[in-house]
């Protein structure tokens, strides 16, 4: 017992420690590779943007400021990060982050370093973010930063220096950059990031970096950058809109034909009867299918594939309308990018509003309960939802990992964003309208499913019934066991009374009968009568003493929690009723707390042994000894009396009771007796009773044998 508590505490601490370690540790080791070929970005954390897989690349198709994907270990320090990337769109930058800490959605909402390719000033840009942005002097990229072209970026972070190498994968032109900062961020995760444009990343490899790798880059740069505050107007030529004309120009015919920009709502109301070419201007709210929205409404646009757009791009579309499934679509002949970075916030609507024509084609947000979910072979997710008024569907590309889909539990309250496509009625399962989600990031779990669903209730009730049944069974079993114990004890007492009182009374009866018969026949002399009566009186005295001892032992106040030997000594003195008999008590080892069952059994065994001594042994002294060992306690009761032949009396003298009680606690009994030398009863018991099945069977057998005997 003394050792157990510290051991248990140590184990618990070790368990808690390892649990904390497992939770904290992000299970990433170097080298780390992710080629996205499995289309599962498990371990990547999405922070903003509109992410999806295309081929072996992960793609963000949104103009959102600072869209991020973060992964890796927060303990990564000196790393070399290699990645292929390309910019989608005409302005903004794409790149990677190293030593990222405290990242969250937001333009510069992280603490770490960023290395990227920026199209605005055609530069390799390196800098430090700390919920704000500082950058080194941009290094002009040889050949410029061309949208749609693959570049390879090699970033090495060692100590407080970061080297970067950008390679144009078409021309092979290489640009180097080097940034140093005092009191730098020493370690952190890695990530992919785009700023105000879309981007594509592939072949991410992170390895342990060596100083020689960094030195190789350092030897190629002409100056070393330091993070500095963006300063003064003359330093920037970004966002001027020159790039807005980069798209192919319209033919002069179309230009002449569409001088006036139509608003989308009017165009839809005029429907497909309008054959002439029209121009609309709006923002891209969905990419697949393409939807454009202006201040009046939104419309699906069939655009040629060569126009690569991002969410938030502002476009001018020239084309004409056509009807499809009673819906007006705009067939584009020409798309011109006129601006970007305008992410249209969704309108919060009710499901009934969404089912009306007013919000058809517009970006909307609504709350509903998830009824069911499914994902098709291409990874597109379909959700069936309902609120108090409508049943509808939400469709969209699957997330970067299955985890997002798996986390959606039917019955959950969701907030869904996406473009609203109204009608036609698609039956009970499809409902009145469909929300076309941009990505799985458009699904937000507001609350989990309620606990009281019918299925759950049935399950809970069934479980309750089983538990109640089990409880009743255990209760009955316990009651039966209690009753069996009472019967067993009663049987033992009957045995005791039979062995002691009944036999004594029988003997007394014989004596008195003998006296009566002798008196009747007149053959008995007075001295003989006196002798016989004296003998009978002795018998009465002994019987009374035995009865007193039994009663004393059965008295509930007998065990007051004292030491076992003290208890037995007190019991002996009670039995002696004032007669002197030397008792020697010996304790060996450190006393150990005994379980109630063991203590009770040992006490009764000891008392039985003492009763035998007082009754039969004619001893002049008694020695009681307890020996506490590592796992066992031994009780020894010895006398220096007349001894007996154990083989002859093995069934008597209460030995059956001694054996039964000992067996019940898994103890072993040793009885050594020699004529004229004395007797020793030795019981060796474990501190705690361990009831194995085999022991229980043995016990049952012993108990039944005793009863039969």
């Amino acid at each position, binding site marked *: 017992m003394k050792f157990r508590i510290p051991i248990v505490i140590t184990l618990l601490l070790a368990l808690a420690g390892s649990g904390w370690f497992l939770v904290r540790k992000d299970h990433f080791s170097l080298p780390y590779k992710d080629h996205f070929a499995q289309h599962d970005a498990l371990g990547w954390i999405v922070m903003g943007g509109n992410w999806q897989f295309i081929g072996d690349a992960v793609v963000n198709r949104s103009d959102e400021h600072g869209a991020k994907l973060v992964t890796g270990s927060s303990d990564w320090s000196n790393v070399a990060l290699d990645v292929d990337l390309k910019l989608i769109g005409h302005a903004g930058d794409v790149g990677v982050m190293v030593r990222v800490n405290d990242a969250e959605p937001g333009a510069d909402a992280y603490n770490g370093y960023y290395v990227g390719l920026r199209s605005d000033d055609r530069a390799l840009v390196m800098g430090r973010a700390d*919920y704000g942005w500082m950058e080194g002097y941009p290094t002009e990229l040889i050949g410029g930063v061309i949208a749609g072209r693959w570049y390879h970026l090699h970033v090495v972070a060692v100590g407080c220096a970061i080297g970067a190498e950008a390679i144009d994968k078409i021309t092979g032109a290489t640009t180097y950059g080097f940034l140093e900062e005092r009191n730098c961020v020493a370690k952190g995760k890695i990530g992919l990031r785009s700023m105000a444009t879309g981007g594509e990343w592939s072949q991410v490899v992170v390895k342990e970096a060596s100083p020689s790798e960094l030195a190789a880059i350092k030897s190629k740069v002409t100056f070393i950058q330091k993070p500095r505050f963006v300063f003064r107007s003359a330093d920037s030529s970004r966002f001027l809109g020159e790039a807005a004309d980069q798209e192919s120009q319209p033919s002069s015919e179309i230009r002449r034909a569409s001088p006036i920009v139509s608003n989308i709502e009017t165009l839809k109301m005029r429907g497909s009867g309008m054959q002439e070419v029209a121009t609309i201007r709006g923002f891209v709210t969905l990419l697949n299918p393409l939807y454009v929205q202006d201040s009046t409404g939104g419309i699906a646009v069939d655009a040629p594939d060569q126009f690569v757009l991002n969410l938030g791009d502002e476009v001018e579309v020239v084309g004409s309308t056509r009807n499809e499934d009673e819906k007006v679509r705009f067939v584009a002949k020409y798309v011109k990018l006129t601006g970007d970075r305008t992410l249209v916030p969704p309108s919060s609507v009710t499901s009934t509003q969404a089912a009306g024509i007013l919000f058809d084609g517009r970006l909307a947000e609504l709350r509903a309960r998830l009824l069911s979910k499914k994902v098709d072979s291409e990874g597109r997710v379909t959700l069936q939802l309902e609120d108090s008024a409508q049943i509808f569907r939400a469709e969209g590309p699957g997330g970067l990992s299955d985890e997002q889909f798996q986390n959606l539990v039917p019955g959950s309250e969701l907030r869904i964003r996406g473009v609203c496509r109204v009608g036609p009625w698609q039956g009970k399962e499809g409902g009145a309208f469909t929300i076309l989600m941009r990505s799985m990031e458009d699904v937000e779990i507001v609350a989990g499913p309620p606990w009281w669903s019918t299925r759950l209730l049935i399950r809970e009730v069934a479980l309750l019934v089983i538990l109640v049944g089990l409880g009743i069974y255990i209760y009955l079993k316990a009651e039966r066991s209690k009753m069996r114990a009472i019967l067993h004890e009663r049987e033992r007492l009957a045995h005791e009374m039979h062995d002691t009182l009944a036999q004594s009374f029988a003997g007394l009866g014989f004596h008195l009968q003998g006296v009566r018969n002798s008196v009747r026949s007149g053959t008995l002399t007075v001295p003989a009568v006196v002798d016989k009566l004296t003998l009978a009186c002795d018998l009465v005295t002994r019987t009374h003493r035995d009865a007193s001892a039994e009663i004393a032992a059965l008295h509930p106040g007998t065990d007051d929690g004292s030491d076992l030997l003290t208890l037995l000594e007190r019991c002996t003195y009670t039995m002696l009723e004032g007669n002197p008999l030397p008792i020697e008590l010996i304790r060996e080892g450190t006393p150990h707390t005994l379980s109630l069952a063991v203590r009770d059994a040992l006490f009764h065994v000891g008392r039985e042994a003492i009763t035998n001594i007082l009754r039969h042994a004619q001893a002049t002294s008694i020695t009681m000894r307890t020996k506490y060992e590592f796992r066992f306690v031994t009780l020894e009761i010895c006398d220096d009396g007349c001894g007996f032949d154990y083989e002859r009396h093995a069934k008597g003298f209460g030995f059956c009771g001694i054996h039964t009680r000992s067996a019940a606690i898994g103890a072993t009994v040793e009885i050594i007796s020699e004529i004229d030398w004395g007797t020793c009863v030795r019981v060796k018991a474990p501190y705690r009773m361990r009831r194995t099945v085999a022991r229980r069977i043995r016990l049952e057998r012993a108990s039944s044998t005793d009863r039969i005997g």
Partner: protein
Amino acid sequence: MRLRSLVAVVPLLFLLGNVGCAYKKYSDVICAIPRDPSGSLYVTQHAGMVHAAARFGMKVYWNGPRGGDDTQQQIELMERAIQQRNAGIVITPTAAFALDTVIQRALSDKLPVVILGSPIPFPADPYLSFVITDINQSAKLAADRICLSSKKPAEIAIIGIDPVTPGTTALLSSFEKALDRCNLSARIVSKVGGASTFGQSQATTARILREQPKLTAIYSLSSVGTRGAIAALQAAHRDHSVRLVSIDPNLDLVLLLRRGEIDALIFPNMRAMGEKSIENIVALHKDQPVQPIVIFEPVLVTRENVDTDSVQTLLKMDWREIP
């Protein structure tokens, strides 16, 4: 027994002490939610806030919408600040009324809130203060500049009007009054509202230029609208005949000012306003009196004064204490 009691009581006292020390009514972080956290104008506000917060041993958490005026993202950030018991919130609302509920929630929690930039209609509260730009002065500076540089009679177009943006109506009204005072013959020939984007603004300005051949000046209320207007003016070859005065400036517009494509920019003193917002929050925590409305005068920036120390200080974006 005494030793046992001591052994039991000492860890308990230690634990209670730790819990007591760990529980603070507010954290030492002030949450700042601008309209555009990476926009250069707001970075000057960030700089002012960080420097003021450092004086009081506090920190600034800086984050905002990730593109477009996403009010929902501002609401979410405010909710988080309330949950985390930040020391205060400094917000430049993207919309006049949409944030009212969450602002009220913060005030109910006795969390100091500073509305920075333009006023929003909200009932007075001891924990609410406004640190705003003098709209009347801003309108007057713009009107005076247009009067000064335009031929008479002046014909003026106003673009980039976003009625959702707080203070827009008041600004327009002030501008018209100021214009009347400085040039009685001045006439506003066009007012264009709606979402202000580069493409829309370019198209709108092009239309106005077609319809108003005598246009002498454009007053732009948004930076994106200003860029679109410049593109339209250049396309129509009227960039030298039509004066362009803009509020809502940023770093890029200053470059265009240097090039002569913009006549003047009205700069709010965001740096000083950022500093004042922190001072207000700290004062409220110290139970010191706070002026409910503090008004800062904007600055007219032209090619002539752009390189002066006072203007350059205004543009300084040293948002971080370099260790």
